[in-house]
């Protein structure tokens, strides 16, 4: 059941702005959003537009949205200053699993690093005051979680959250850039096979292996193909054009299941992703017409 009154926008002032790269900023709001990693909010700039943004940070007292400057709404947002207000509704959608006794291989492309950075912090219990709601038991420092965090970008200057993720305990950072200016030269997905092999080879205690991915769809599709080939589990955040964000308009329904990516997604299991014939092939624009990748 939807908490109906929560879908009216809450008008919040921006409390901090961090320049992440030339085209990416994180906007912080002092508000207890009670979100989970993988979920999104709708952000409204009155008179202009309202769009979904994945949540990149949530300490319990403060949340952050990492935003790529790509259109009129984000352009307006990039011109805003601390104290300027925007309308927020949410959080909405499904989240990545937070499980103890698990080795995560996180695969982030571009600003997909934001929700995965939030997930890595959640798994490292960075914000104990949030009162973590883990799927299986509560996560403490001895939760037996390790993380290979793989992040890819065009070049060194466009890599996100290198510093933020590097300082987390139990996280090993792996970089990939198209031009080789940092880390592996090539796609981030080139790293998967070796990381999976290395983990499975050196595994000292029984731990589940889980891939999670967020980023460009064709990158995510490669992660799914890899997990299918190797019979490994994964969770994928699938982005579709959203209008309402609250499960009514049907704009983000995916073929052939007809499930809504704002409600039954954006994070889906491998089993669900494998049933989505449109995944990696096409999505729909704001009229509902198919756009092939």
């Amino acid at each position, binding site marked *: 059941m939807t908490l*109906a009154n929560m879908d009216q926008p809450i008008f919040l002032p921006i409390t901090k702005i961090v320049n992440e790269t030339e085209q990416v900023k994180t906007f912080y709001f002092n508000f207890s959003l009670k979100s989970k990693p993988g979920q999104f909010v709708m952000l409204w700039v009155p008179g202009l537009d309202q769009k979904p943004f994945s949540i990149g940070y949530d300490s319990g007292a403060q949340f952050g949205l990492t935003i790529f400057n790509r259109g009129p709404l984000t352009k307006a947002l990039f011109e805003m200053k601390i104290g300027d207000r925007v309308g927020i509704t949410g959080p909405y959608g499904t989240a990545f699993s937070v499980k103890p006794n698990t080795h995560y291989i996180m695969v982030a492309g571009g600003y997909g690093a934001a929700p995965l950075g939030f997930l890595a912090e959640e798994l490292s219990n960075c914000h104990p005051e949030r009162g973590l709601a883990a799927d299986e038991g509560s996560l403490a420092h001895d939760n037996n979680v390790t993380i290979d965090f793989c992040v890819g970008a065009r070049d060194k200057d466009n890599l996100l959250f290198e510093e933020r993720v590097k300082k987390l305990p139990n996280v090993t950072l792996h970089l990939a850039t198209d031009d080789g200016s940092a880390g592996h030269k090539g796609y981030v997905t080139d790293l998967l096979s070796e990381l999976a092999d290395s983990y499975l080879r050196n595994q000292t205690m029984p731990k589940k292996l889980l891939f999670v991915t967020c980023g460009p769809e064709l990158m995510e599709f490669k992660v799914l193909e890899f997990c299918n080939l190797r019979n490994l589990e994964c969770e994928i955040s699938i982005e579709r054009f959203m209008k309402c964000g*609250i499960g009514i308009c*049907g704009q983000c329904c995916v073929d052939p299941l007809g499930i809504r990516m704002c409600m039954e997604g954006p994070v889906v299991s491998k089993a669900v992703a494998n049933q989505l014939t449109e995944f990696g092939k096409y999505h729909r624009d704001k009229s509902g017409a198919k756009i092939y990748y």
Partner: protein
Amino acid sequence: MLTTTFLNKSFENPLVLASGIMGVTAASMKNVIENGAGGVTVKSLSLTPRTGHPNPTQMGTTNYYINAVGLSNPGVEAGVEELKLFKTVCEAPLIGSVFAGTPDEFAAVSERICAAPIDFLEIDVSCPNVSREFGDPFAYSIPAIEMITKKVKAVTNVPVIMKLSPNAWNIVDIAKAAETAGADAITAVNTVSGMAIDVRARRPILHNKQGGISGPALFPIALKCVYDIFQAVKIPIIGTGGVTTGEDALAMIMAGATLIGVGSAIYYGGVEVFKTMTDEMERIMKEEGIKSLDEIRGAAH
């Protein structure tokens, strides 16, 4: 118990997905059927694709749901492909839906949607983009409704349903005019015009400023429209507007509706609301010793 015959077509239950909700693709409509709807109405199609209004296009509260999507749709050509696909994966009754700016355009888009295997065609004459060539918006104009009904009937091979606006003070006369002009059924009602203002933003929440109100706030208004229209026409009525519970649905049938349109109830009860509502209808019917819906249709008169 809930089986309903509407214009010679059998529906497993009388709840049909209302136009504009969840209904962009064959897959989403099939999902609604799997969640217990007796039939579906596709989101209205136009001759050419439309992207609709910028967001916010909708907002929900405990009491009402407001939307001004701007009739976004991929156009009738792409829409026909989705409707064909729907019928290959689902046997449930399918109601097509179109809107247009002029009577001739209504005829043109109606003719084209009939290339799809739709069972009925609903004509949205209560949309915001109305032609004023008759001096009044279509929704309030008897001559406009007559002309659109006749032109659409002349080019279609399926029963035609006219969807009317609760903003029409003369909705009963409009319904009678549609019946006289050859309409096979009436859908009553579309959303009622309204607005929501964010006091901190100091402006309307919807980008389009005004929108259509549905949800619980619309229900008593829709119920009265259906009650009044039932007394005035012989053709069947799809009662739509704020029906969110099984009890609401039974009240609509007692007012005279044959089918029940269900839309924003999904906001209040999730996509599984169809099943929740039919369960409740059956429970109340058992308690009250009601054997079939035919037995109580119009019973409140």
